[in-house]
């Protein structure tokens, strides 16, 4: 085309970024890589299958050969990390900060090389790797350099966990590496990280950066390989914490595989995030929001706004605008600076997208697809909008992980919330409205870890990112993300043992001849199975019988907790009043509870102290009700990112035998204070203080269903409770952690399992309890007029 032709048709032409520097770097390594272990390059095995190709998805051609780490290699990496760990942890925060700072600087200096290499390996547009992935990765290291510096003064009660295993996905290879490594090493942990097998190259380049920064050997170890290598990391006994970003299916497997291992776990999994457009939205702005939501990174984004919900009055106009915009998108060579969408990671992924879209069309969806010409070679899929779909369609329920948007309409704000929450997932949501009342009304109601008001896909190291429900747990970024790589300095080591039950015949005890019932939905209830079991005093005599709860009692209790919204809808001040009332009512019955405890062998003094401590503990958490504030994060935006503490929802709590009243109260009160509803399973051996407590609840204006108390065998109750899909978290204090964690995988509920003995007097309260009772939702709200 000559100048005159272009003058008339005003085409963009080609504007390719040169791949040469990145290709030169690969050539310097003879296009073949080993692992980075203990600060050295370790060659992959020379045998067949010892390496695999990393391809350029835009051309299908191999870029380099990457090694497949076997058990020996992973062992070696974990050993290197373990050897480096204590010294790294002992390094001063200031020094650790200097290393992170150096890494950030070196990333910046090599920014273009990283961007081009990322685009070659992943297929994402160079604009995105250049303007988004790399700068955000840099930002993450700078931010966490600051945390390394501040850790000793700001979080004096916490310390590193040890060796951390990290498994990351292929959609943001360098960025996810930064999200994982920066907080881990800032806090004194050492790392064995495995990039996804499709996209190992920037991780290997990053290893060189670590060398250049002079990072002590073994602090960061990079092993490459496929899922089998990931499995070796997850199952490695030398690793104390697993951080994973990837699919919900793999996340569920990891939860099961690590059950009972004592490994700390954070999972950032799939999503089907709602993108809500209200009648009063700036529709043109929202259209651009959709572009950045689902046609960013070819839609291969876990938090992609892939479920469009448009209010009926503007739906037709919005769809028209959106389709017009979709046709403007340019798809092609990812290295071209004028390209909006590059290549899909792999032909198998492309096929999966095509199959799901076809299933949608077969089910009656209306297909709107860009008619842009796709390149002949390479792996591409056009931007797609499916309308005329309903919540029952597979394309609406399942994560497609491609540039495919499904759209539904809503009539009222309530319906928008109902549709948005009608999903197993809960990663992110985007809300578009020019009415602050509407936007701020919807934001707390949608179940998601991140909410973007009038924006989408905003990320920053200072604000936590992560999901709820089956989108996983844990946060990355912000102070909330640091806790994922820290443990309490005062952690106990003595293992809990369950006391053997004594069999003896019923002996009536004077003044205590009643049979305590269970407590479900505000009512005293008999056990569903009709069985009871005896409770003994310290002499071995039977005091009374209590209900032997079974799975149906758990079912009923969860049902009651889930459907009782009153407590969660009360404001903090109201909850506080109720809890002060609870403390007061407990004090009226102090003598009665003291007698119970004495029957279990407490001395009078001990018993009175435990009751008094329990009263104080309720007051402690009542005090916290209106003080456990969130934060406003300092993100680089004109606006606020509000980190709100939200209740988890329904928490199942299995109480220990130790200090049967105080431990029960110490777990109940923080959960209540933060607005959760609970299903408590009482200490199996000493259930009476817990069962007696419903008398206090009954007289304290606690709404029915807020607290439900079941007695029975913990081992019998654990499975239905931990496996219940409507329970959002389980706290287990006992020896059944493995079962709890394994069963929790059903809906990926949060777990807090403690198998060691806790001194409930001295270690029974604190902000760590409140952290377990809440999750952080970050609400991004840009402003300006």
């Amino acid at each position, binding site marked *: *085309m*000559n*100048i*005159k*032709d*272009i*003058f008339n*048709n*005003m*085409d*963009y*032409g*080609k*504007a390719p970024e040169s791949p040469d520097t990145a290709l030169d770097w690969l050539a310097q390594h003879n296009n073949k890589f080993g692992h980075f272990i203990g600060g050295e390059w370790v060659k992959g095995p020379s045998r067949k299958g010892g390496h695999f190709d990393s391809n350029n998805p835009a051309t299908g051609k191999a870029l380099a050969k990457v090694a497949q780490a076997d058990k020996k290699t992973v062992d070696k990496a974990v050993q290197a990390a373990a050897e480096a760990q204590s010294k790294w942890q002992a390094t001063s925060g200031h020094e650790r900060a200097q290393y992170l700072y150096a890494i950030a600087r070196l990333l910046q200096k090599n920014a273009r090389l990283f961007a081009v290499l990322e685009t070659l390996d992943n297929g994402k547009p160079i*604009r995105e790797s250049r*303007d988004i992935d790399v700068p955000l990765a840099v930002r993450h290291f700078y931010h966490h350099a600051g945390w390394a510096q501040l850790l000793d003064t700001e979080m004096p009660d916490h310390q590193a966990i040890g060796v951390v295993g990290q498994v990351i996905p292929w959609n943001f290879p360098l960025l996810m590496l930064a999200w994982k490594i920066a907080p881990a090493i800032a806090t004194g942990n050492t790392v064995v990280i495995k990039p996804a097998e499709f996209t190992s190259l920037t991780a290997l380049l990053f290893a060189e950066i670590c060398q250049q920064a002079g990072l002590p050997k073994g602090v960061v170890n990079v092993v490459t390989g496929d899922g089998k290598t990931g499995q070796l990391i997850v199952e490695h006994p030398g690793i104390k914490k697993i951080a994973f970003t990837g699919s919900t299916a793999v996340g569920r497997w990891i939860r099961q595989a690590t059950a009972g291992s004592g490994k700390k776990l954070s999972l950032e999994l799939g999503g089907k995030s709602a993108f809500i457009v209200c009648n*009063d*939205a*700036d*529709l*043109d*702005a*929202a259209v*651009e*929001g959709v572009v950045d939501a689902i046609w960013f990174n070819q839609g291969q984004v876990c938090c992609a706004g892939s479920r469009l919900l448009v209010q009926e009055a503007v739906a037709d106009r919005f769809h028209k605008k959106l389709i017009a915009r979709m046709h*403007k998108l340019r798809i092609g060579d990812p290295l071209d*600076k*004028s390209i*909006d969408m590059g290549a899909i990671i792999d032909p198998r992924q492309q096929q999966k997208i095509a199959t799901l879209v076809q299933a949608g069309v077969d089910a009656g969806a209306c297909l709107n697809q860009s008619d842009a010409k796709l390149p002949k070679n390479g792996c591409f899929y056009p931007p797609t909008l499916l309308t005329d779909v309903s919540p029952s369609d597979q394309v609406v329920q399942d994560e497609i992980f491609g540039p495919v948007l499904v759209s539904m309409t809503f009539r009222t704000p309530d319906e928008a919330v109902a549709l948005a929450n009608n999903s197993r997932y809960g990663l992110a949501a985007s809300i*578009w409205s*020019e009415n602050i009342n509407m936007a701020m009304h919807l934001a707390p109601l949608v179940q998601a870890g991140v909410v973007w008001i*009038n*924006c989408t896909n905003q990320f920053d190291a200072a604000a936590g990112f992560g999901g709820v429900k089956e989108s996983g747990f844990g946060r990355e970024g912000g102070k909330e993300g640091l806790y994922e790589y820290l443990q309490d300095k005062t952690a106990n080591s003595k293992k809990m043992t369950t006391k053997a039950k004594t069999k003896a015949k019923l002996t009536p005890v004077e003044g205590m001849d009643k049979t305590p019932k269970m407590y479900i939905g505000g009512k005293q209830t008999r056990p569903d199975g009709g069985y009871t079991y005896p409770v003994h005093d310290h002499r071995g005599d039977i005091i009374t019988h209590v209900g032997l709860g079974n799975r149906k009692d758990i079912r009923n209790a969860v049902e009651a907790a889930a459907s009782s919204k009153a407590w969660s809808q009360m404001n903090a001040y109201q909850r506080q009043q109720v809890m002060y009332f609870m403390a007061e009512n407990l004090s009226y019955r102090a003598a009665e509870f003291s007698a119970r405890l004495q029957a279990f062998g407490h001395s009078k003094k001990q018993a009175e102290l435990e009751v008094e401590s329990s009263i104080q503990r309720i007051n402690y958490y009542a005090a916290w009700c209106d003080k456990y504030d969130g934060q406003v994060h300092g993100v680089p*935006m*004109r*606006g606020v990112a509000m980190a709100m503490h939200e209740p988890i929802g329904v928490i199942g709590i299995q109480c220990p035998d130790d200090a049967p009243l105080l431990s029960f109260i110490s777990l109940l009160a923080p959960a209540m204070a933060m607005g959760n509803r609970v299903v408590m399973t009482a200490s199996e051996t000493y259930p009476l203080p817990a069962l007696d407590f419903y008398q206090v609840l009954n007289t304290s204006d606690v709404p029915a269903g807020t607290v439900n108390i079941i007695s029975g065998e913990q081992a019998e109750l654990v499975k239905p409770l931990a496996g219940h899909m409507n329970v959002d978290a389980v706290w287990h204090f006992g020896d059944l952690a493995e079962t709890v964690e394994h069963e929790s995988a059903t809906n990926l509920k949060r777990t807090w399992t403690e198998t060691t003995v806790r001194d409930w007097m001295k270690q029974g309260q604190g902000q760590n309890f409140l952290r377990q009772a809440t999750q952080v939702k970050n609400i991004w709200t*840009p*402003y*300006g*007029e």
Partner: protein
Amino acid sequence: MTIKRNPGMALNLDWIESIQLNKSAIERRAATLGTRRSVKKQNQVAWLLKAITLIDLTTLAGDDTEQRVKRLCAKGKHPLRHDLIDALGIADMHITTGAICVYHDMLATAAKELAGTGIHLAAVSTGFPAGLSPLHLKVQEIKESVKAGADEIDIVITRKHVFAENWQALYDEVKAYREACGEAHMKTILATGEISTLRNVAKASMVCMMAGADFIKTSTGKESVNATLPVSLTMIRQIREYHERTGYQIGYKPAGGISKAKEALVYLSMMKEELGNDWLQPDLFRFGASSLLGDIERQLEHQVSGHYSAAHRHAMG
């Protein structure tokens, strides 16, 4: 391409009231317009030549004289050095600027200089730049300018109507101007730096189009803030809205503050992305600029020679 001229329509307050704007979102879009598209090499040459044809080459100073205006018209007729034209092989394209834009007093001189060139002659009018002269004088000023040879009239709106949200008064005023313009095309200057909020800009844009504007224009060039990308996005999205609702295409003229070739390319890709190729023609898009041309010339010389150029190598306007 022939553009059906906008006849205007009755003031529809519902359309005005339904306008929603999110400033942060508009700024985000504006910030990435220049990073999402890149025009290189031959395409850049063609785009820069296009940009020249879209320039309203302007002098609006109190010390303007006939000689100064003659020099400007000469530049408008021959914006590029001859050897560059030859090197690019574009002699037959007869590249000129889109228009010359002057005060009323300079129209006679300019009309004489531009006769037969096809270059439009624009006059700023209606008590430019403040626009606070008596209405009947402002209407008369338009008529005089048209009589003196202007085929384009750049009017300024009364800003106080915007602050008062007195859309009826704004509509009536602009409609009166449009009638006074007759066959001459009318560009309505909103003084976006003064009416301040993007919401005001959007609403004023829509009212002006309803009142019969052929173009909507950002600024007089005399405000402290002139054309910006967020303001431009706001205005052209209203143009898109008006087009979708009525079928009429309205032109856009950002004025003031655009002095670099690279910025001009961003504006062109913005028009192409948001409105389409029709809006890359002088009938529907103009740059109000005085120093942009000089930078384009330097860039074109760089494309031809491979060396960065200097201002003194190119003729003054």
